[in-house]
């Protein structure tokens, strides 16, 4: 119905011009809900206003907006006025300011009926009352003035106003920002109803939950550019662009189990102006207002806009101009094709003598992701993590890191691999030498790689420290919020508390600026308050530095708080792996369910082993303890199955079908 093609908009602002939209192309279709997401200032509302022809007069625009094939950008005010309300309607964001304060709302809502259709006032008021009642505004409230209504009521009034002429195109700008949860549910059903009637809807929201529940297609805007176009159901789950990932990680849904993340750095606006170069040519420049990291605040025209805040930016991101490219069902604007796979483990096997520690485990890890490996003691989780970190060699299987084979990498360039991966160990006090000072502990990875470490050490004694080394150490200490006073640097670990030592270990792991952090039960030796601090610290580091973290823990409660994905291990095998929210809320493997239920302190179906039947080595490792066991569980290992359309894998013949929540409801009902 509405097609937007290569549409750019530049706001004039004194000497500057603000580039609000940059060659945006998309379309709104009948019975189709498109959602625009993005931070404030990303151009969402500008887009809506542009479609409605409501941009300020001095705005410079380019490209076309077509309604059923008719160009809208050249229309004069009168023709536009005829279109508005009848064909296209909009619910504005700043609700109260839109209404006339001296008119009763019922009169205001009836106005389009009278103006556009020429219906008599009495009749119009009747239609209006019906419409308002449909929006659950009582007959008493209809005759109030806008200032007598609450924010939610005003929002619904505006809705009624926009829908009164049954427009074909509806634009909703942050419809739910003033609504409580119950009204939001009402809004969702309303949107679905409109959708079934064939209305083309453009939803502008930062409420991703609403987007997932109602929309068909989601468009991620960043500084006026489309970064990713994706099916809306993939939001919160399968995302490609780092910008979308950061956005979704920041949003609190009911499902989300992880602590909220965020996007690092600050948003800024894009200013364009024209510079005259020395050779007489002119070249338009894009200015980044808050981009102090660039000389003169000039950003090159080329390159990705998200680069300064992106956690996986490479040099190439700044060089080429990047187009939206198709990636599966998504379209992504990223040189690297979205978030890259950082680490891949394929069919890893490792045995210590007769004991199999890891059996045929395959995991892949995307950049900037936190994967938690949970499982009981001896399930091989530490071994798997250490194989990933390059600290242990596997017996068979492939491991690649940044598309290079780890084994070869270690063999040829031990040091360069060691700088890519930082390891945090279980027991902080044990993992540092008590003879080292704080400075020596953090500088140790540098000393190891610096061949003249002996010379450096002797230099230090004479008081002239290697400046670069010192800077790195102090940065790492600042990152983990430890003091950097000379007095503190000369302390020994036994003078510090456990939490400080663990942060010291984190600083040591960070000093080379690694990409991957492998943390082996980093908090199990800490008391809860210190543990909370360390976890917060790791999460913040993850956001700021875009670290990829493999977190090993036996505590599913901790795993729940920090992970993007959870991998459940049992007897060396991965039994279930998937997005954290799915694993926690809808576990499929009985063992995962057992872990979660025991963590909740309610063993719903714990039974003593059914029989002492021996499980063959090929059988499911959980077979003997499993209440859902079927015959073949004893003989063969279940194949991998996945929950439809999701990256949630499990290995079970007879998976848990009812989710704990439903199950509880049912048992309560039976009582």
């Amino acid at each position, binding site marked *: 119905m509405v097609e937007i093609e290569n549409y750019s908009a530049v706001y004039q602002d004194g000497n500057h011009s603000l580039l609000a939209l940059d060659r945006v192309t998309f379309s709104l279709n009948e019975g189709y809900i498109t959602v625009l997401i993005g931070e404030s200032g990303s151009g969402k509302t500008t887009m809506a206003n542009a479609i409605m022809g409501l941009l300020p007069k001095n705005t410079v625009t380019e490209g076309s907006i077509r309604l059923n094939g008719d160009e809208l950008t050249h229309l004069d005010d009168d023709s536009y006025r005829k279109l508005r309300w009848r064909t296209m309607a909009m619910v504005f964001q700043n609700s109260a300011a839109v209404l006339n304060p001296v008119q009763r709302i019922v009169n205001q809502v009836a106005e389009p009926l009278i103006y556009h259709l020429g219906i008599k006032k009495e009749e119009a008021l009747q239609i209006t009352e019906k419409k308002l009642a449909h929006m659950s505004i009582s007959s008493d409230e209809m005759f109030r003035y806008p200032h007598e209504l609450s924010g939610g009521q005003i929002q619904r009034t505006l809705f009624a106003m926009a829908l009164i002429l049954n427009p074909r195109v509806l634009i909703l700008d942050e419809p739910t920002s003033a609504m409580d949860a119950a009204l939001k549910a009402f809004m969702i059903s309303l949107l679905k109803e409109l959708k079934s009637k064939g209305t083309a809807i453009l939803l502008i929201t930062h409420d991703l939950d609403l987007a997932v529940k109602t929309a068909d297609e989601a468009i991620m805007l960043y500084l006026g550019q489309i970064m990713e176009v994706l099916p809306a159901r993939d939001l919160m789950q399968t995302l490609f662009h780092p910008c979308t990932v950061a956005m979704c990680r920041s949003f609190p849904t009911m499902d989300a189990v992880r602590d909220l993340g965020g996007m690092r750095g600050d948003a800024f606006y894009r200013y364009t102006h024209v510079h005259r170069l020395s050779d007489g040519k002119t070249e338009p420049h894009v200015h980044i207002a808050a981009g102090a990291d660039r000389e003169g605040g000039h950003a090159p025209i080329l390159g990705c806009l998200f680069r300064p805040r992106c956690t996986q930016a490479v040099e190439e991101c700044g060089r080429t101009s990047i187009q939206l490219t198709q990636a599966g069902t998504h379209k992504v604007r990223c040189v690297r094709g979205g978030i890259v796979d950082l680490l891949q483990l394929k069919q890893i096997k490792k045995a210590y003598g007769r004991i199999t520690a890891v059996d045929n485990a395959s995991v892949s890890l995307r950049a900037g992701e936190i994967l938690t490996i949970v499982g009981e003691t001896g399930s091989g989780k530490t071994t798997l993590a250490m194989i990933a*970190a*390059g*600290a242990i060699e596997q017996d068979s299987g492939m491991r690649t890191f940044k598309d290079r084979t780890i084994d070869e990498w270690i063999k040829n360039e*031990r*040091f360069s*691999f*060691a700088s890519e991966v930082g*390891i945090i*160990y*279980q*027991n902080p006090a*044990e*993992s*540092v*030498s*008590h*003879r080292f000072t704080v400075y020596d502990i953090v500088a*140790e*990875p540098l*000393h*190891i*790689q610096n061949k003249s*470490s002996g010379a450096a050490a002797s230099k230090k004694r004479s008081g002239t420290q290697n400046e670069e080394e010192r800077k790195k150490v102090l940065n790492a200490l600042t990152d983990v919020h430890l003091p950097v006073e000379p007095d503190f640097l000369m302390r*020994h670990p*036994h003078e510090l508390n456990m939490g400080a030592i663990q942060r010291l270990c984190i600083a*040591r792991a960070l000093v080379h600026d690694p990409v991957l952090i492998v943390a082996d039960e980093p908090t199990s030796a800490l008391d809860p308050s210190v543990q909370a601090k360390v976890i917060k610290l790791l999460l913040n580091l993850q956001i700021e530095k875009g670290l990829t973290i493999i977190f090993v823990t036996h505590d599913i409660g901790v795993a729940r708080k920090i992970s993007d994905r959870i991998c459940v291990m049992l007897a060396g095998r991965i039994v279930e792996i998937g997005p954290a929210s799915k694993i926690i809320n809808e576990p499929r493997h009985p063992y995962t369910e057992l872990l979660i239920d025991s963590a909740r302190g309610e063993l719903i179906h714990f039974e003593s082993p059914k029989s002492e039947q021996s499980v063959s080595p090929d059988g499911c490792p959980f077979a003997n303890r499993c209440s859902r066991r079927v015959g073949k569980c004893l003989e063969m290992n279940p194949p991998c199955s996945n929950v439809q359309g999701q990256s949630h894998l499990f290995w079970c013949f007879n998976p848990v079908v009812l989710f704990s929540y439903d199950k509880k409801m049912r048992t309560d009902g039976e009582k």
Partner: protein
Amino acid sequence: MKHNIFNVLIINRWFVFGIILAVLLVIVFTAGAWFSRYDPYNASFSPLSPPSARHWLGVNDGGMDIFSELMYAVRNTVLFGVLSAAAALALGIFAGLTAAWKGGLTGNILMRLSEVIMSVPPVMIMIIVASFMRPSAVTLAFTLSLVSWPTTAKAIRSQALALRERMHVRAARDMGGTSSYIIVRHLLPELFPLYLIGFIAKLRMAVFMEASLAFLGLFDPARKSIGSMIRYALQYYYLDVWLNWLIPPVVCFSLIIMSITFLAISLEEVFDPRLKEI
């Protein structure tokens, strides 16, 4: 932690006695050597003269000044001990660390070898070597170190094996630390108590050994040693010269051994619980 060790040591009675004794002995013998005006090999005095203002401890049967002789003898004996102990320690550390780090065949061979050596009494080997080959004192000191390294090597190896699995050592290895880095920065400092105890024990053993061999007459008879002094003095024990000839070297020897023993006891008391704790 280093300052803590000293704090613990200073309140240990054995250590205080031992160190005071050792310091006194060092002062007495350095100062004494300064005061002894005679060449110990100068045999021009009248034999068996009693102590006098000129000869504080008298003159022996060969016409030599006993005081000067004693000064030289103590120095020779102690130097022999230090040399042998140091060499044994170096060998022990090297063998122990190699066995721990390399493991496998090398480690096995080293450990079996050390067991073979430990099963043979060192006195026997020393007597055989000294009597048949008649080497110089320095060579003999090294020979002694060749038979006394295994105990240190075994202790070092077992501690190094335990240390190797310690988290901070594993961490250093995961960070890409080379063997030499880990040994120098992590293992050697941690093993410090072992060297100290090992050195003191070896010193005591070597001093004793030197005195015994000299007493048996297996050294060059012309070499001044506490053992040989006692041996010669014993031949005249029926005369009253034993007072000034026999007693001084015996007392000196006892004091030296006592001081070393006290130090050894104190060090073991202080370090052992810590070693177990590790």
